[in-house]
């Protein structure tokens, strides 16, 4: 007689092994990034008011330890998103030259880390000059 037994899947699967935990950390970067995007909107709005008072309040908030803490968290989350994104790019878009697969590192650097460095440098340069 067939009487298949169905078992429950572990509800805490995302805590079970390193790979699952890293996956969850990667997905949750989106929450921090979303939070920062909301802040960005407020920041632009505040800047757009144009008067010195609004800008002063923007500055004083930016200097507050809470802002420094939140920015640090957001920066870590965003950097983690960048790193995981670039590392996975070669799996999503593999390239071959003839029979050989272009090594993953080469793709990650050419399509990810390289442009990242250029963009970051350019934005910093544009801000400081």
């Amino acid at each position, binding site marked *: *007689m067939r009487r298949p037994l169905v078992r429950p*899947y572990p509800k805490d699967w995302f805590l079970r*092994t390193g*790979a699952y935990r890293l996956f969850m950390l990667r997905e949750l970067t989106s929450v921090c990034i979303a939070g920062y995007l909301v802040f960005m909107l407020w920041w632009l709005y505040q800047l757009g008011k144009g008067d010195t008072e609004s800008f002063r309040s923007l500055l004083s908030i930016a200097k507050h330890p809470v802002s420094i803490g939140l920015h640090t968290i957001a920066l870590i989350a965003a950097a983690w998103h960048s790193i995981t994104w670039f590392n*996975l790019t070669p799996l999503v878009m593999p390239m071959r030259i003839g029979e*050989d697969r272009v090594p993953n590192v080469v793709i990650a650097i050419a399509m990810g880390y390289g442009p990242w460095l250029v963009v970051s440098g350019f934005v910093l340069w544009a801000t400081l000059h």
Partner: protein
Amino acid sequence: MPEPTITLDVFRYRPDEDERSTFQSYDVPYHEHWVILDALNWIKDHVDGTLSYRWSCRMGVCGSCGMMINGDPKLTCAAFLKDYFPATIRIEPLANFPVERDLVIVMDDFMSKLTSVKPWMIRDDTSPMEEELLQSPSQLAAYKQFSMCINCLLCYAACPELDSDPDFLGPAAIALAHRYNLDSRDQGTAERQDILGAEEGVWGCAFIGECTEVCPKNVDPAGAIQQAKVAVTKDWYKRMLLPWGKR
């Protein structure tokens, strides 16, 4: 000196006797060169002939001996006792599958998913061919990795998405669909696109990537699914932007 032994906690379920599953402990002689499958065979031969499980080749080719070892999906013919000794080893049937009996899983659902993606060569012209279809080494290299699958189903046991949506096609089936789509001799991509592009197809995957981690054949099903997402997406845009049947 007494021979060293190792304890296996083995999942038992006998549908005709048991209401629910239990664990049974067996003490098995410990040999450094033994794999877990050797230990199970020793139990079957010397202690308990009623223990049921699948195996055949003992060399990682047939793909029938997959089980959960301490919660991780593994081929038991490739998992050595020495990597666990002296701790107890917990052995269960593959996760995400119903249990037929003891360590034997029900594969019917996977089989229908697998056939639904038509994992075979599709040609427009089905009349007997005059000449063989030639393929260059680089055309072979394009899909070879994805053709190494032995249907061991470790990737299904590793995929939390299958718990969240049991209709999800799953890693191996999508990887095999992708394998044929990449094959220069195949002409069935359009036929497979409907199922790959459905909600139950590639979109069930959030790129957790554990399927690729556990694959004993380095097939990289996670990569295959993402590549299939790219292909399906291009196809979707083509259909939207060229609505007059030009694909």
